[in-house]
């Protein structure tokens, strides 16, 4: 249930011709698109300079003065996360050239790279058309050559932390970073992801984010600092409402818990009702969001999840036996992080008072290398288990990935202060 469905894919840009290539609404056809845009789509490769071979591919298209290519951040991330890697473009005639990374937007998965000369006609950007309008995704899937996939604009995603366009058309690996154009040939978005195990459910980054990035296309020097700043800002915006508002209310027994903190958080029943042999029963609610910020191939941030479980005995057993089993639920799972990106995990345990009851609580934090303003991005895990009852207990778990320390503790604090007992 917690499995993330999104699959990111590589991109290839396609240099887009200018407005002169306008297509009329009544005369749109993929053959026209093919003819007009093939030469303006580029494949972007990350090259390991030790071997001279590519480690990832994607698509890109020309913007700005024609020497700048827009693509996805995840297409070029290897150049930031691996040593001795460089970027290269390949055009439709198989000509290649080196690229320099200009700027990134990890929150919206965008990047700008620059060639040493003008290599294509810049595409014009446009807001997305009305829902139901046809869109065309362009790119180089699986390194097989240029393709055009037609689909439909279904508007901005609802109940999601990501403001992607829902595109009901096929996107494939290698098309990441390619443009999605409307029937006039203007770019309305950038191909970014598809939903795995689905049919033609794909996602496109709206062009407004690319326009924002293009406002300051100057070359960055410290990309880690830039990533940290973007995460700080995005986290602050994402949790701003949540740390002040009351969350949706739910309950297990007499204890009330805060459920969805925002519209992108889904809560599910997670009770273990099928294990008939077990003497221990679980009533459980789990909530999680769909935020997923790609940083590198082994690091995605933004996930929030929390759960509330009532552990109880189905039959009368000694209290010591119940607590020996209850202890099994007192554990935290951390995502594996590399030493390059993260420090060691540090934990602190204590007895705390929640809703007038005594809990054993443990808070574990793992700081990352992404820091700014004397605060750093970290992972946080929290668990609290009620003690004192003979045959049942409540377990509260909370997980945050990639949030600054001060803010992550505020979110946790707000969650805990909303727990209360109410006798019906």
């Amino acid at each position: 249930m917690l499995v993330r469905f999104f699959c990111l894919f590589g991109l290839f840009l396609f240099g887009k011709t200018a407005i002169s290539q306008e297509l009329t609404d009544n005369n749109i056809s993929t053959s026209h698109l093919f003819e007009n845009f093939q030469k303006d789509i580029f494949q972007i490769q990350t090259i390991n300079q030790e071997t001279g071979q590519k480690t990832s591919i994607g698509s890109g298209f020309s913007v700005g003065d024609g020497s700048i290519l827009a693509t996805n951040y995840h297409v070029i991330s290897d150049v930031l996360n691996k040593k001795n890697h460089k970027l290269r473009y390949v055009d439709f005639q198989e000509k290649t050239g080196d690229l320099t990374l200009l700027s990134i937007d990890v929150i919206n998965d965008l990047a700008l790279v620059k060639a040493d000369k003008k290599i294509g006609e810049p595409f014009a950007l446009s807001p997305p058309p009305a829902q139901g309008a046809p869109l065309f995704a362009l790119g180089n899937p699986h390194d097989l050559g240029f393709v055009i996939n037609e689909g439909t604009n279904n508007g901005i995603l609802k109940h999601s932390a990501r403001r992607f366009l829902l595109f009901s058309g096929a996107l494939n690996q290698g098309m990441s970073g390619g443009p999605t154009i409307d029937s006039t040939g203007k770019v309305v978005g950038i191909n970014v992801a598809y939903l795995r195990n689905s049919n033609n459910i794909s996602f496109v980054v709206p062009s407004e984010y690319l326009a924002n990035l293009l406002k300051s296309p100057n070359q960055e020097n410290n990309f880690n600092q830039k990533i940290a700043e973007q995460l700080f800002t995005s986290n602050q915006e994402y949790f701003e409402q949540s740390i002040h508002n009351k969350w949706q209310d739910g309950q297990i027994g007499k204890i009330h818990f805060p459920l969805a903190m925002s519209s992108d958080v889904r809560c599910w029943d997670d009770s273990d009702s099928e294990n008939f042999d077990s003497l221990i029963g679980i009533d459980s609610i789990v909530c999680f969001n769909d935020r997923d910020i790609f940083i590198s191939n082994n690091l995605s941030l933004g996930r929030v999840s929390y759960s509330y479980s009532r552990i109880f005995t189905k039959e009368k057993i000694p209290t010591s036996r119940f607590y020996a089993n209850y202890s099994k639920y007192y554990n935290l799972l951390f995502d594996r992080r590399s030493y390059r990106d993260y420090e060691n995990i540090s934990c602190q345990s204590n007895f705390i008072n929640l809703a007038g009851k005594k809990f054993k609580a443990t808070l574990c934090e793992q700081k990352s290398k992404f820091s700014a303003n004397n605060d750093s991005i970290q992972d946080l895990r929290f668990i609290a288990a009620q003690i004192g009852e003979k045959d049942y207990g409540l377990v509260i778990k909370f997980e945050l990935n990639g949030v600054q320390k001060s803010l992550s503790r505020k979110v946790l604090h707000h969650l805990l202060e909303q727990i209360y007992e109410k006798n019906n």
Partner: protein
Amino acid sequence: MKKTIKICTNPLMVLFWFVLSNILESYGDYLTSEIKYYINVKLLAINSGVLLIISWLSQLVIAQKTDKKAFTPLLGIISFHSVLLNISFSLSEIVNFNFSVNNFEIFAILIVIISFILFIGLLLKDYLDKDNLNYYKFLTCFPAVFAALFLLFNIMNFFDKNNASIPNYSKILLEKTLFSNNEISIDDYLIK
């Protein structure tokens, strides 16, 4: 001191400690089992096997220097310390839980190892002359100490490839705390 080890080496006491060791292992397994519990024959066989094998390996060392059989007293001492280790672990859990500290079991293991070495030393005085006593004491203790150290390193996640990034906290829950007023507010816990 020699009288002290009689509580381990007397044949009746050997049987007592051997049986008690198995009972405690079974009881620990019963506590953590979440299905209806009958006897765990496999666990009993493994625990008995470990005690017997370590005792046999230890007595092989003594057999090099004397014809006297030392298997039974060794089994008594090893079984006694197995019981001691079980009890020490349980006490450690109480300490870990109440004081929110980690791996207090390490001290329990170290104390049991020291006690074991002392007991073996006293035993060997009856079997070996003073020449090379320490050397043979080391060899005799080795199988049991090796097993205990393996347990110690396992607790410390020594065998995990990425041990430093494993969250380290007390994972035991008990019904009651030793002190009734040792809880703090979430403000103190998270903000201050």
